[in-house]
């Protein structure tokens, strides 16, 4: 069947069953690479997107539950040419090794900063505690989020 959903501000229709996890639709039907398959269990955070502003594990959300909600992926934040302050800060801090977890880090950080524009370092760490990174890039990620908060404060 066909299901419509709003992603990054645009209405999209996809030929998928209602129980299809959002992640596969984003990646395979809509061509968004950002959200990653990591565990399919909601444990690692690599697939995080924003649904109505809330960081959500897209591997665990069936299409049927999206309804009128707005989905924002990392592609909706910015691009290589016009990066979002968070993306810019991750580049400036070189906050990636393999980079596979970074989508989830940035999307979760977006929600952290939306809720509290100037979090403390501890608050950033707590906020990202359920996003796993295996390369050991954690401290750079925290620095990048704090840098983004600072940049946003100046603009």
């Amino acid at each position, binding site marked *: 069947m066909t299901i419509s959903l709003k992603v990054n501000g645009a209405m999209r229709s996809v030929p998928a069953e209602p129980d299809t996890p959002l992640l596969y639709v984003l990646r395979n039907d809509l061509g968004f690479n950002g959200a990653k398959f990591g565990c399919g269990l909601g444990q690692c955070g690599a697939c995080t997107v924003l649904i109505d502003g809330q960081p959500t594990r897209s591997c665990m959300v069936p299409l049927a539950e999206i309804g009128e909600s707005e989905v924002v992926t990392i592609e909706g934040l910015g691009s290589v040419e016009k990066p979002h302050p968070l993306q810019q800060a991750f580049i400036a801090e070189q906050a990636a090794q393999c980079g596979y977890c970074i989508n989830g880090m*940035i999307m979760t950080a977006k929600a952290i900063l939306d809720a509290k524009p100037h979090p403390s370092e501890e608050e950033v760490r707590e906020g990202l505690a359920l996003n796993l990174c295996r390369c050991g890039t954690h401290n750079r990620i925290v620095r990048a989020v704090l840098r983004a908060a600072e940049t946003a404060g100046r603009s």
Partner: protein
Amino acid sequence: MNAPMMSRRDFTAGLGGLVVAFSFDPKLALAQQPTLPGSLQTNRMLDAWIRIDADGSATVSTGKVELGQGILTALAQIAAEELDLPLGRVHMISGDTGRTPNEGVTSGSQSIEYSGTALRLAGAEVRAILIDAAAKKLGVAADTLKVSEGTISGADGRKVTYGELAAALDLKREATGKVPPKPAASHMIVGTSVPRLDIPNKVTGGPAYVQDMRPAGMLHARVVRPPRPGSRLESVDEAAAKGLPGVVAVVRDGSFLGVIAEREEQAIKARAELAKSAKWTLGPPLPDSAKIYDHLLSLPTEDTVVSEKQPAALAGAPPANSAAPKMLEATYRKPYIAHGSIGPSCALAELKDGKMTVWTHSQGVFPNRGNLAVALGMKPDDVRCIHAEGSGCYGHNGADDVALDAALLARGAPGRPVRLQWMRDDEFGWEPYGPAMVMKAKGAVSDGRIVDWNYEVWSNTHSMRPEPGGVNLLAAWYLADPKKPAPPKGIPQPAGGGDRNAVPLYDFPRQRVVNRLIKEMPLRVSALRTLGAYGNVFAVESFMDELALAAGADPVAFRLAHMTDPRARAVIEAVARKADWKQDQKGGEGRGRGIGFAKYKNLATYVAVVVDVEVDRASGNVRVPHAYAAVDSGLVINPDGLVNQIEGGIIQSTSWTLKEELRFNPEGILSHDWLSYPILTMTEVPKIEIELINRPTERSLGAGEASQGPTVAAIANAFAHATSKRLRDLPLGRTRVKAALG
């Protein structure tokens, strides 16, 4: 591990120190070719490495691949530097059996040393050839010409660009390796923290991974694995799966089982359906993880004395006029550890016109191609492997296996690309693990010095990667016509496998180090970052502290007293300074600090680490709030990239050390997700301060695996300092810590 392996009888353990081993390729010897540095030795033509394009840019090929370590950026820096091109005009091609040099496996922290050296010399030579061509064209002497950003200028102001010379340029010639590369003092790009070329795409959702490939007509696949290794598939209801929406084919070959569907979620549902109906004759039970070390020690071993030092003057008795030596003995244990990549392994394969193309995040596309060809019954020339990045691998994870799985499945839908994504439980259940190890140390101190050192290490092999001696790919063992894995073997010293870093860099008057290679593998194992070095540095450096305590000496002073290598001394002294190490610092009450040191492989980067730990007696929780490191990698190519690798190694090692242990019982592997295999999280990672000691006149040394060993040792030593209890079993998890502290 790029060099051809030597069998154990090809080398002899020398008296008095390290054994020197040479790689030996009979083909090269027969041809009487001169020895060339780095990977030029095995890929000798200039055009295999560098092409100058008509637009004046350079296409640079490397057999090494990006694993998230930033290697392509560093190699591009080296090539751009020698070619006098801006970085933006160097285009990298990597790991493609159809296009790039064969540099074996990207492993062992060797890419800068091997590929980097080749590119450095090839770059210098191509630049010289370009200058000669310009000199001819302009009718002037070559030494009157200057090069800047790909433009060659004469004293008279006339210019010629690389692009103008490209068409007539002949790089189909053997490298001489004789054109001197630039001296470090004139480096403009090398030695700077150039931003990684791959990061912008990775933070914006740009295509970056094999998982992101979606060629037209692509199908999705999943595999169905048995409950435990060695099981045989007796029956499965293929029709039920084929009846599900979107299913294109069920592929069964012996006990290999998989499914292809139009959509990914359809493949996942079909996988579950097949798993439900599959009937297996179970393979042999696994040992119990609670008794694994006794089990391993009960198995036969192939023993090699890898170092023996016993000058006659000291044999049999301690030095005259010294107090009777104090003897110590300790046994250390390290569990099986999973690579645990955040993204499970993935590959894309297509069978078209009798040719198989596989996009793979393998660390070694050439060796993998060889094994794939055997497993598929195809000619190597009909199989092409192209590297496409995956999630970080940290050694030999499921990357090679999923490539064969994908190729087997692609045969079920010829002409259409098939992308196979392993599920999380596929990865935890079937990746080759980093082997469990047992290390036994005996030592004697007298007058504050170590007078005797005896060390043995028991371990499986640490490398079962694809290689010509057998098919080291999971699915190959389950086919109707099954293929055999290569026999396990060690890696000779000085690099070593299970015995990597088993020979201490310290100067002891007497020492004996024995490697006991266990050939039977109760669990599937292969290379995990550092191979045996993590276990051996844990044991060697823990025992150093135990001996220091027995000698009443400060751990830093004790190490320096036994160390003559000036670069090793420099990193130990630097980290002590950075951490404000004090000789009389009090431990206890749950707080302590410790040091660990190693020169990785005794061949690569020097790292000393100091950590602070906090131990919560009530919960048994161990925290590492701070870590300090001093690092000597010789000439630093990219300082920030180096820091990133060292930091990552410290954090990953902290995770291994505090949390990680693969769990299994006779029924099978019990670690199948992040709840049953927890790793360090954002609130638990140490703050890290790193000091780089750049040595521009020394050659660059591999650093990707250099900090893990020193980190585990520093944590174990800090724990002992904090609690006055020595833990010799990893990990330092809550249950073990609580039991130890009573």
